């Protein structure tokens, strides 16, 4: 049953994508939403089934060559949780897009093309596939599909700059994928299988190679230094896509495979953790510094994504040193950040839609003219900055707690954690600063001339606000 549901979740979007391409242009957006909805229902049912089954982790092999599993599904509390997030957010983005990509859009007035929805659906399916995959090959397979989809979506507007950014994204993540290639191949040559569960049986060198391979791939996808350069440029994408790419899907691929690797390997060499932590901190600080000059809301969010992912890397790397709390915190942060950042991006999109600009200096006094956007902006900013009762705090707290706890054993972690904490405060300040400049006050000319927010956009924003409030509790209770 679960197997069927998972397969349905993965395949339905692909089928939908094919149909979307074949169907008449006007039907595309409805088909897109329909299939995204179907996938969401499927993944939600899967989660329910999994819950009924007592949340026992299980693995199903699907495609085998001899004894070698090429592709299989893994069900545990992590895959179901993240799976739900990626598919559900896909649905929300679909719904949002149906209103965003219309002639009424002030920044990019045009009706959404079928290929947009097709790419999006494929993206959803690929993400689901990646999340449920029980083998490295499966992960690599869907990893690359997401890369291809991101290419198509970033360059969607067909502007030279966007196309360039798209190629950049594709290539950099593809270079990252080399790590995964090597990891999968190495795993195979050492153990004769691709399944993640066999990673535990590797020798020390094998573990190092495989884990560093995965880490490198993860850096590429999750836009960590030194492979981060694609992400800010990727803001050329239509904003709902940015939301999906940089909140729920693309960048989460990296951290997810890293998390999977750590869980599957069990006893990961500490050097991986050390490298992971150090790079995470460096990226964190770099990403923060890059907040400062940004005037475009989306670019600011891009760098914020980079730093938030650094937190996740930090958490996951800490979990290598044996902290269960860090692992859970990291996973929860994947989940929480997905909703919070989606919200933020979609707010940025709504600004583009209604005001025709998303440059922060020209946005002012949003709350009086566009109250929902103001509230969403605030909720998103606070969630990202980690202020309770919004979700960001809860997972970040766990990460910091785990980090400080570990610093008892590994004293050198202490300064790093303090740096991270400082960054947290500083980014809080920066978001608060922008909040103060954008939301309250007298409406600027652009805001004053804003058009009303369409219903689907409103709906999605409200859902996301609610999720931003309760996702951390969902994650915590689901992960146990």
């Amino acid at each position, binding site marked *: 049953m679960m197997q069927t549901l998972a397969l349905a979740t993965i395949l339905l979007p692909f089928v939908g994508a094919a149909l979307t391409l074949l169907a008449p242009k006007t039907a595309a957006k409805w088909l897109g939403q329909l299939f995204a909805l179907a996938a969401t229902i499927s993944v939600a049912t899967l989660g329910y089934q999994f819950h009924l089954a007592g949340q026992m982790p299980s693995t199903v092999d699907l495609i085998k060559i001899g004894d070698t599993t090429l592709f299989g599904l893994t069900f545990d509390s992590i895959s179901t949780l993240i799976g739900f997030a990626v598919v559900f957010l896909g649905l929300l983005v679909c719904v949002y897009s149906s209103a965003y990509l219309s002639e009424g859009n002030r920044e990019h007035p045009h009706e959404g093309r079928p290929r947009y929805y097709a790419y999006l659906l494929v993206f959803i399916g690929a993400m689901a596939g990646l999340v449920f995959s029980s083998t490295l090959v499966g992960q690599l397979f869907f990893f690359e599909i997401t890369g291809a989809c991101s290419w198509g979506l970033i360059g969607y507007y067909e502007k030279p700059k966007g196309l360039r950014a798209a190629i950049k994204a594709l290539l950099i993540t593809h270079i990252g994928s080399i790590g995964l290639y090597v990891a999968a191949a190495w795993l195979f040559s050492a153990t004769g299988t691709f399944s993640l569960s066999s990673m535990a049986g590797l020798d020390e060198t094998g573990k190092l190679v495989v884990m560093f391979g995965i880490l490198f791939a993860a850096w590429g996808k999750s836009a960590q230094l030194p492979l981060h350069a694609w992400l800010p440029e990727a803001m050329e994408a239509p904003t709902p896509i940015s939301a999906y790419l940089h909140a729920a899907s693309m960048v989460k691929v990296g951290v997810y495979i890293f998390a999977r690797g750590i869980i599957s390997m069990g006893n990961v060499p500490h050097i991986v953790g050390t490298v992971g932590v150090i790079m995470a901190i460096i990226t964190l600080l770099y990403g923060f510094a890059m907040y400062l000059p940004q005037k475009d809301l989306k670019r600011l969010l891009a760098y914020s994504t980079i730093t938030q992912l650094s937190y996740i890397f930090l958490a996951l790397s800490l979990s290598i040193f044996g902290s269960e709390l860090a692992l859970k915190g990291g996973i929860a942060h994947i989940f929480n950040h997905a909703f919070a950042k989606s919200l933020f991006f979609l707010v940025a999109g709504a600004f583009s839609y209604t005001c025709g600009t998303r440059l922060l200096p020209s946005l002012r006094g949003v709350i009086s003219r566009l109250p929902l956007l103001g509230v969403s902006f605030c909720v998103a900013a606070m969630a990202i900055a980690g202020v309770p*009762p919004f979700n960001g705090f809860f997972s970040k*707290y766990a990460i910091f707690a785990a980090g*400080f706890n570990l610093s008892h054993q590994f004293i050198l972690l202490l300064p790093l954690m303090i740096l991270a904490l400082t960054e947290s405060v500083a980014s809080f300040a920066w978001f608060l600063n922008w909040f103060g400049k954008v939301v309250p006050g007298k409406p600027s000319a652009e805001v004053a001339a804003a058009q009303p927010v369409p219903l689907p956009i409103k709906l999605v924003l409200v859902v996301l606000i609610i999720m931003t409030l309760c996702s951390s509790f969902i994650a915590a209770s689901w992960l146990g």
Partner: protein
Amino acid sequence: MNSLELLLLSVLLYMGSALLSLLCSRVERTAINLCGIGGMAAGVAGLAASLPVLLSGHGMSANLGGPFAFAEFTVRLDPLAAFMVFVISLLATITSLYSLSYVREYEGRGAWAMGFFMNTFIAAMVALMVVDNAFYFLVFFEMMSLASYFLVVFDQHDEAVSAGFLYFLIAHAGSVLIMGAFFILYTCSGSMAFESFRQLHLSAPLASIVFLLAFFGFGAKAGIIPLHSWLPRAHPAAPSHGSALMSGVMVKVGVFGIIKVGIDLLGATSAWWGLVVLGFGAISAVLGVLYALAEKDAKRLLAYSSVENVGIILMGVGVGMIGIATGRPALGILGLLGALYHLINHAVFKGLLFLGAGSILFRTHTKDMEKLGGLGRLMPYTAAACLVGAMAISALPPLNGFVSEWFTYQSLFSMSLDGGFAFRLAGPVAVVMLAITGALAAMCFVKFYGLIFSGKARSEHAAHAHEAPAAMTWAMGLLALIAIALGLCAPLVAPIITRIASSLVGHGALAVAQGTVVFPGDPAQATLSTPLIAILLLAAPILAILIIGVFKGERLGRRHGGPAWACGYEQEDRMRVSADGFSKPVSHMFDALFRLRSALDPAPCLHASLQRVIAGATRVEPMWEDKVISPIVRVVQWIGTKVQWLQHGDFRIYCLYVVAALVVFLMIAVA
């Protein structure tokens, strides 16, 4: 219903009314009433929850689980928490009453949202007092800051927004320090529960780090100098009932936190912590009141005065900690008694004064004291209530401010009598500073009252003001009454607070009251009877009036009003005492301290460094493109163009390639 259930009810009422208020955004009047009445009901429930614990001295706790594996939601209503809940509920009840009328000012500007934030703010504070887990403590701490932040920025003008920014930033930074302190404790105990923290026996250096982190973290919230800079900007920006709560209660959360960590969790094991607290308290007190004195803005003045009062409270806390650390429980109890007593007192009179300022603002739309004046006649009830508040805050007996300061004095005296050199030196110094504070505070509030209520109106608005609506005057009246009651009923109140203090110190209760007198543990040292003083104070003027009335009866009737005598000149506006003029001598005297304020202001320095970082980041950002990616692309393309040379068109050369390959491979084969 037991206390915890009542408490839960209280929080639910706050939250319920807050959420309902959100739903009533279209009918703002309903939202206002809902929030006000809901808040009052919740406040009453809170009072009902805390009173039994206060009176009995027995706390209770419960574990509610929660979704987070690393932190259980534990609630603990111990005497200290009950005391704080009492203070919060008390003020919340009254401000809610006040808000019924006051918030109408904000109709059409999102009054519903204000109600939401207000009640959430209170709910967060109440919850914060009783949670017994570091994680949830921080959650509620931040929620409190968040909700109050929105109150601060509610007016949406630039000053409010930047004040809010500063406020929230400092609060958040403080909470991060607190988080750090908790993390150290967590690392040692392996659990987030406060209970497990209490069981810990940390090494002295580690405990000191924890304490200092917590002290500065909470100190930022309490507004101790030098972490106070947000306070005089944020409090005036908030709506007045919000300021009342922020100033009256929220800053106390900081004090509460210091007590919680320093005494409850860490057990105040090092005496120098107490000295630190005492020192910062004393400095805050003196500087706070000095700065207050120089203010023209009524609410800013009150805000600086909060800094001062927090300083006084902290002096008590410091003495309490020294007492515990040096093994003198009586001193500890006394110090804490002074602190806690002043805590509730300050909540009451500062609340009262902010509400008063709010009423004036409500009617005159200005906070600038230079533009007020003569309101005593136009707003008599407000004036009367403010008079009580001003007297109380100036520590005039028999009002409550006097009692708590008296206890603080007594504890400082006790400390000076005994113990190491440092303490014997610190005591008298602190006493002196407290005395200066008292004197300046009195001056400050003379100015406050005098400029606002006496004399003639200095502006159109002030001239046409009239009494505030009933709900507001009632609220102020209630607070005034409570202020008086807390003073007069000191013999009744002091033992209750003593019980709390002794439960903190972990020592048997100390007798501090007997009959109508209160005394600092030992009646031989000093005694004080506020009822008696009251009688005496009331009796003296009444006696005088009676005498005059009896003997000069007809003269009183012949009195008539006229312009004040101005040496024979016509009355002119500039002859009147101005806010600046009033405090000029003091400003002169303490010029250095005022200059210190601007010299030590880190803002310009921070700003400059921020600009530098931004400039750096602007340069670095394109560097990846310029220095890494473009070169790679260029190199690849360069190689490509070079490789293209291989395919230059002449097929004869192509044939040679084949031959060359053959030759090379043949050589390989043969070799």
